[in-house]
């Protein structure tokens, strides 16, 4: 039984084909890391799965726990359990963080035919999650991401994930721009949320995040496709050798597809 099955996915952004036949299967509870050179289509994958406007799927299918994910509106995808942690979380001035999160949770619950949470029950839930995430409740009283430091923004994403309890979390370069302490905190948050029925797709540029979040599988995304899969040793190999070695194995890849160098 799979959680997510991406089959031969092709997608265009502004008329340019970025994903060119990407396939990936994720089972419940698994953590998949996706690495790849710049411009390989890593962020496109997250955006396509979350349903962002302007990302046009031209071929292929995405099945999410038995549903045709691509047929759903973005807010419906959230409600059925897909969560995208943004590389650049967006500021919404004047909108209280707690209020935002409650509106999100209740919109999702409503869609699923569940009872909406009143403010008391919501606050109780939030307090529990705060404890797990080791986040100060001062964050709750501020406007969504407004004036947050880079680390705070990323932690806020993980905190939202904790409250919304998705089935599938896609982390889009969540580690970018974080110092080592912030990185550890974010990783601890993610690890606390790992469970047998929750899957993760972690898109990252750097191997170092995987020191703290141990993946079950590591994939290389290059030229719009998954070209190599393995376990965490693959990430270490990429760290040492870069991507150039893949050219021999995959003569169809153009040089430009592999020139990005992992730091």
């Amino acid at each position, binding site marked *: 039984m799979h959680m997510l099955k991406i089959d031969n996915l092709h997608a265009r952004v502004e008329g340019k084909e970025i994903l060119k036949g990407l396939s990936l299967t994720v089972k419940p509870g698994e953590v998949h890391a996706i690495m790849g050179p710049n411009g390989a289509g890593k962020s496109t994958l997250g955006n396509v799965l*979350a*349903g*962002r*406007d*302007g990302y046009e799927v031209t071929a292929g299918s995405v099945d999410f726990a038995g549903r045709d994910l691509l047929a759903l*509106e*973005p*807010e419906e*995808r*959230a*409600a059925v359990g897909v*969560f*995208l942690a*943004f590389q*650049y*979380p*967006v*500021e*919404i*001035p*004047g*909108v209280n963080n707690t209020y*935002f*999160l409650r*509106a*999100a*949770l209740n*919109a*999702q619950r409503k*869609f699923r035919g569940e009872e909406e949470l009143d403010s008391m029950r919501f606050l109780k839930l939030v307090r529990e999650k705060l404890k797990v995430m080791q986040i100060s409740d001062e964050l709750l009283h501020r*406007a*969504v991401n407004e004036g947050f430091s880079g680390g705070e923004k990323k932690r806020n994403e993980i905190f*939202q994930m904790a409250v*919304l309890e998705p089935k599938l979390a896609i982390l889009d370069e969540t580690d970018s721009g974080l110092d080592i302490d912030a990185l550890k905190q974010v990783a601890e948050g993610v690890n606390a949320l790992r469970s047998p029925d929750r899957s993760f797709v972690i898109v990252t540029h750097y191997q170092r995040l995987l020191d703290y979040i141990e993946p079950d599988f590591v994939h290389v995304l290059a030229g719009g496709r998954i070209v190599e899969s393995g376990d965490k040793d693959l990430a270490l190999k990429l760290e040492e050798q870069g991507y150039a070695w893949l050219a021999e194995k995959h003569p169809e890849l153009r040089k430009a597809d592999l020139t990005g160098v992992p730091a």
Partner: protein
Amino acid sequence: MNESENMTREVAAPVRDNAEVEAALNRRYEAGFVTDIESTSLPPGLSEDTVRQLSAIKGEPEWMTEWRLAAYRHWLTMPEPDWAKLDIAPIDYQSVSYYSAPKDGPKSLDEVDPKLLETYEKLGVPLHERAKLAGVAVDAVFDSVSVGTTFRKELAEAGVIFCSMSEAIREHGDLVRQYLGSVVPVGDNYFAALNSAVFSDGSFVFIPKGTRCPMELSTYFRINAINTGQFERTLIVAEDDSYVSYLEGCTAPMRDENQLHAAVVELVALERAQIKYSTVQNWYPGDENGVGGIYNFVTKRGDCRGADSKISWTQVETGSAITWKYPSCVLRGDRSVGEFYSVALTHHRQQADTGTKMIHIGKGTKSKIVAKGISAGRSSNSYRGLVKIEKGADGARNYTQCDSLLIGKQCGAHTFPYMEVKNPGAIVEHEATTSKISDDQLFYCLSRGIGEEDAVSMIVDGFCKQVFRELPMEFAVEAKKLLEVSLEGAVG
């Protein structure tokens, strides 16, 4: 002086469920019903005779009639203003009826026609004893007359006068005569002169020395009759060391004809007095093609006449086809304070040219302006403000913040800040921003499960927070709802 912002947004918005948007649009203006009630109206037309007739119907003393006639004669000499960034079809002042009132004249609330009570009930402003809004006294103005005022006894015990302007002219003639036109002179501007000639009713508030008004006062203006203009006049006088918070709300039926509303509001704050004046303006805005709607030409001015007095305007403007309105403060008393908090929302073909004037005359006077403009559809939304610091206003300070938010493809936002500083020691600060609801913000909300319409109203609400904070609680809730309703169908 200069037009600092003039932006048009071009974004391809996704096409959403049309039936849903259609439905939302159709229930957009909930106050658009008509009350079927017999009324007495003056025939359309304006002349000295009309003014005399109007004054006679209201049983006014001669000084009042003469005051009106002087205003009318002055009005005849004035050109219609054309400096605002508004595109206004010519108004035929002779086709308007200047007076319309429910047939059974004003009486005590127990005797008011049940249809009228029902009207206000439907608008969320119950007037009868049992359902009265707790802690808020209401004066209900229907077309040209006040049909009732609640909590009269309680207010009288506190020494507060709160009644219709007609009653005030009859019962408190000396007070009215002393203050009427002392803030907005008869010939102040074209629409103020017209109002001075033909105003039919409005509210009068008098807070005696040392009195804190025991409850919020509010006037609910309702236009009902067809082809009728509403010309109300409000006068609030706060004597030394007094305080009052006053709210006004406005609605009108949906009609294809434009209707004229030209009001004048005068506030007088004496030594250490404070007046807080809040407006939620929801006149019928016209339909999506710009057919119908109220022409709202309003002169509002507060005079901080006494030292250490304070006047604060808060407005939420969502209605009207055209809004022309600049609530202002004349900071005459030393250390007096003027504030202006505004949210102006335009959608479809609505046009708004609104802002404030802060005139610093006294020493150590302070003013603060926070103006938020939201434009959607094909609307045009302008902030126009003047900060004037007179020579003697040593230590005067002003802070102005103007923010514009654009939603959709074809709307416009403009800012016209004027400054005249004659005192070199004054500190005047101005900040302005123009932003769009970005695709990033929208997608962020969607990706968390929040639907598009809810996301837009949430972002707009956040944008307006600074202003909503200034509104009394019940009004803040209403204002928020109103913005949501007004913006339905703005995206998609």
